[in-house]
Structures are given as C-alpha cells and as structure tokens.
C-alpha cells in the first residue's frame, strides 16, 4: 500500500478520530472474533481434547505433543488421500492453465466484437452456478442411461453402459474435466485484461516483418502477459493442498471413495462427523504449513527465474 503523508491539522482532531473508529468498529470486532480468535483453535492439534470440555478445554486439556500427527501419518488412508489431493490438483492445473491461456489467446483473435462478447458471456456463466447444481448435472450426464453413455455407445466405443460414478478409476478425470468446463471461461478474464493492455504497435511492427498469427501470439502476446501467467502459477502452486471441497464432496460417493477422498473432505469427516478435533486440527496444520511453504518457494523461484513475483 502506498504511504501518504500524514495530513496536518484537521484530521487529527479527536472528534474525527472518534468518527472514523466508530465506522470501523463493527468490521474490526467481527474480524477479531471470526478471523483472529479461531486461530487459538490451532492449539488443539497438540492437545488431547475431549469434545465435552467446551471452549475452556482448548487451554485446559492435557498436552499431547505430536501424538496426533503420529496417528495421522501412521494411518494408510492418509497417504491415499494425500495422493488424491496432489494428483487431482497437479494434473488439473497442468491441464487447465495452458488451456485457459490458449482460450484467452483465441478469444482475442475473434474478429467480431459481438461474437467475442457472446463467447465471453456464455463461457463465464457456469462459474456462477453452484457446484451442487453443476455436480448434480455431471452425475446425471454420467449415469448408465445418461447422455455420455448414450453417445459413446452410439459411436461404438463400448456396448455396455459404464457406471462412471461408481468406479474409482474415473474419478480424477471426472473431477478435472468438470471443473475445467465450469471454470475455463471465467479463468480467461485476467489473461484477457492483460492481453488488451499489450501495445498495438508491437503487432504492427511484427506484421511488417511478416510475422503470422501464431508467431505474434508466441513472440509478442505470451511474453507480454508473462507476469499474469506467473502470478496464476504461483497461486496454483500455493493452492495445491486445497481441493475444491464443494466440488469433491458433491461428486464423492461410497464407491469412488478410494480415489475421491481428499484432505478437505477427510478433515470434515474426522472432525465434524467423528468429532476427533485434535486429529482434524493436526491435518489442517499439516496442510497449511505445506501450503505456506509452497507459496514462498514458488514466489522465490519465480523471482529468480522471471524477475517477477507476488511479493
């Protein structure tokens, strides 16, 4: 944030300060209550907490050392869900980042403004539909008598319907493709903004040199939006431990659990269904520490490599 000089005189009167602080009071109290106070809950990860001991129990229950962490790492479910979390996110980002950039580039190539706006309007739309709705649609499309089976069977890909949602092997693909369709349009917004900021003279110069469409994309547009791409990649790396709970929880069922259990759904189950607060908090800390470390590493790497970063 840019620092401004302290305005002398009028602003420093007590009355003005009282007014300003009274305006900030509701927000400040809410922020402390609902963002800062819950941080004390992190202590739970190192405690042997009993649900019955209430809020005081956070401080009074006996210390447990790193026992909670040991229990988690010894559990073979944990490794499985770590694999699912990383797999879905890593492959998902590797697919979606290049495709989103490509889509932004090609939307930019559309000659007619009305067509360009239509494409934007339509492809942004699914972003605003909830995952419950979108996930339910996906499930309906994938049932044994759903559209996907019908189409693939009509094309002769196989002759007995595949029950996609009940087979763990398909889950990663389903989750990656469905979020790609839902978010690809919306994902182009920032790239489109960056592309519209590219100096037109560069393209004109390239045209005079005889550069074609793809050369201009590769040698002008992409380098010019490099900073935006870097920032999106840093965010993606930092978010690698975060699955989209809303999406995964809707698509998950008892049959695909082997491939659909991820850290966030596991925390919900261990914590709020089985009420093992200590363990759930420990997983949460494990996740947050790795995410923070990744954020700094990615930022550091990008500073070294491309000279730009988030901070």
């Amino acid at each position, binding site marked *: 944030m840019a620092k401004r000089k302290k305005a002398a005189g009028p602003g420093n009167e007590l009355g003005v300060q009282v007014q300003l602080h009274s305006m900030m009071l509701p927000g400040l109290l809410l922020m402390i209550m609902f963002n800062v106070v819950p941080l004390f809950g992190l202590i739970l990860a190192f405690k042997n907490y009993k649900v019955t001991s209430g809020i005081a129990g956070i401080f009074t229950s006996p210390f447990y050392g790193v026992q909670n962490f040991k229990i988690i790492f010894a559990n073979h479910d944990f490794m499985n869900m770590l694999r699912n979390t990383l797999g879905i996110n890593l492959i998902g980002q590797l697919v979606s980042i290049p495709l989103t950039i490509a889509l932004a580039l090609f939307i930019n190539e559309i000659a007619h403004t009305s067509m360009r706006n239509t494409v934007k309007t339509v492809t942004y739309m699914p972003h605003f539909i909830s995952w419950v709705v979108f996930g*339910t649609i996906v499930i309906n499309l994938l049932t044994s008598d759903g559209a996907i089976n019908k189409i693939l069977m009509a094309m002769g890909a196989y002759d007995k319907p595949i029950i996609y949602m009940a087979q763990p092997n398909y889950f990663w693909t389903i989750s990656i493709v469905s979020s790609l369709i839902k978010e690809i349009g919306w994902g182009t917004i920032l790239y489109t903004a960056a592309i519209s900021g590219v100096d037109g003279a560069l393209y004109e110069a390239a045209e005079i040199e005889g550069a074609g469409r793809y050369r201009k994309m590769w040698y002008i547009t992409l380098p010019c939006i490099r900073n935006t791409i870097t920032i999106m990649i840093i965010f993606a790396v930092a978010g690698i431990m975060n699955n989209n709970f809303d999406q995964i929880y809707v698509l998950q069922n008892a049959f695909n659990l082997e491939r659909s259990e991820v850290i966030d759904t596991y925390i919900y189950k261990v914590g709020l269904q089985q009420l093992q607060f200590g363990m759930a908090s420990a997983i949460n800390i494990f996740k947050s520490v790795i995410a923070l470390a990744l954020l700094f590493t990615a930022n550091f790497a990008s500073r070294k490599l491309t000279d730009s970063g988030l901070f």
Partner: protein
Amino acid sequence: MEKAPKTRVVRKSDRPFMGVLYFCMVLLMFLTVYPMWYSIVNSVNSAADLAQNGYAYLWPRDFTLDSWKAVTRDPVILQAFFITVSRTVLVTVLQTLITAMFAYGFSRPYLRGKKLYSVIGFISMYLNGGVIAYFILYNTLKIYNTYWVYIIPALFGGFYNVIIFNANYKSIPDALFESAKIDGASEYRIFFQIVMPLSKPVLSALGIFTAVGTWNDYSATLYFTRTSSLQTLSYYLLSITKSSKAAEELQKAMSVGVAANLGNVVSQSSNFRTIELACMVLAALPLIIVYPFLQKFFEKGMMIGSVKG
C-alpha cells in the same frame, strides 16, 4: 474497463482461420450451456416417459410441469427457498455496508492506529483456524444450529475486500474530500454522500460476488447446522443428490450387465429424478436470469481486484 475495440477487418486470407475459430467457439459455448439445458429439458419431461425412454437430450418429449408443481408446493423446499433468499439479501446488504465503511475509515491517511489494523487484517487474510475452531466458537457463541450462523460470521467481507475498496477510494479526487471538510461535513456525511455514490461500480461488483457466494454456499449448513428447517436450497439439493445417487448406484453396481434389472431401477427412481432436476433448476435459475444484466459489473470487479492481486 476501456471500450471494446471495434470489429476488426477480416482479410480474405484469414477467412478459413476465422471459420474454424468460430466453429470451435460455438462448440465450446454449446459444451458450457448444454448441461444446464439438459436439466431444464428433463425437469419438464414426464417421469413416466423418462423411465421408458431414458433422458431427453434436446427437447422434452412429453412436456409436463408436474415436477415443478411438486417442487413449488413442497413445504420443505419452500422453507429452504425462504432461508436462502433471506440469508442472501441480509448478508449481501449488511456485509457490503460494514466492509465499505470499515474500508473508508481504513483508507483515510489521517487515521490513527492504521498499522495495527493492517497487521490484524493481514493475519486474518493469510491464517485460518480451520473448521474445528469455528465449530467450537459457534457453539460458545450459541449460534451453532441457529439461523444466525448464516448471518453473523458473514457480516464482514474479509480484508481482501477492504483492500479492493481502499484501492477504489483512492481514485476519488482529494479535492472533493477537502472541500467537504471545509464545509464542515462529518466523516459519516462524506462517506454516505460522496464516497458511496462514487463507488457504485465496486459496490455492485463486490455485492454481486457476495450474493452469488452466499446463494450457492452449502458448507455452512453442512458444518454448523443439524435442524432440517435451517436447510438452504443448495443443501437440500445436495442431500437428495447424495442420498438418491448412492442408493441408485448401489443397485446398479449390483446389477451390472443385467439390462432388465437396470430398467427397473431406473423406473423406480425416475419420478424422484425429475423432482431433483426441477429443484436444481430452481437453485440455479435466479442466477441465470440476472446473470446477463450483471455481467458488466463483475467483469469490472475482477479488473479492480486484479489491480491489487
């Protein structure tokens, strides 16, 4: 956002490329819209027909509003609808006001204690106590499993929104503030009569994001309520999706390859299915209807955000 550039001239040599490009774009649009269309079509198709011939793809074969009538008469769904609407309106209005007001105080260069507030703000932005901490907190505050669990924790929009508001307020010319001060206007007056009217774009953009997020949210219901009268539309849809699909898939998994059995299972559940679809369309419809009108606002909102982010 600046004005969209005028339609470019398409050179003759470009035409094949444009043809392929437009074709691909139409295909993409079809892919994104079709799932929604698929559910609308099937929600107005008769259940008996669905059971016999499977899903309809492009157009309802046997048009009926039966499942819509069932949905709009169901007291549970109406209750969920009421909870969702009232929650969305309350949270959007109050959160936008409280956050904008906080941000105004925060944006004044002569505010005392700004450093402290920044520290608290950034801590709140980057650290998170986790769902368990909230569970205990809400229980302590006695808002667990009440309507207020939807409202009170959501009243502040987060420090990220403060940063966006702050960046936006900076574009208001200093002269306006100074002349208001000379006229003896109070900070409240400056905020409500100068800052708010000049911040309409950012207010509407952030307001829309809040409204959409609140309307679509189901995790608050899942984590922090137990009573069915507190269900939101999203949560209700989630619960019927999860319960019906689990049962259906179980039956199907047992009858893989036996086409006759498959048919039976489908006919049992298809009535339920159209109701589910109608409910789903109901949950998405308000957003789809207002969407085209709001698009320019949130596009603007994303740009404002990207300045910072």
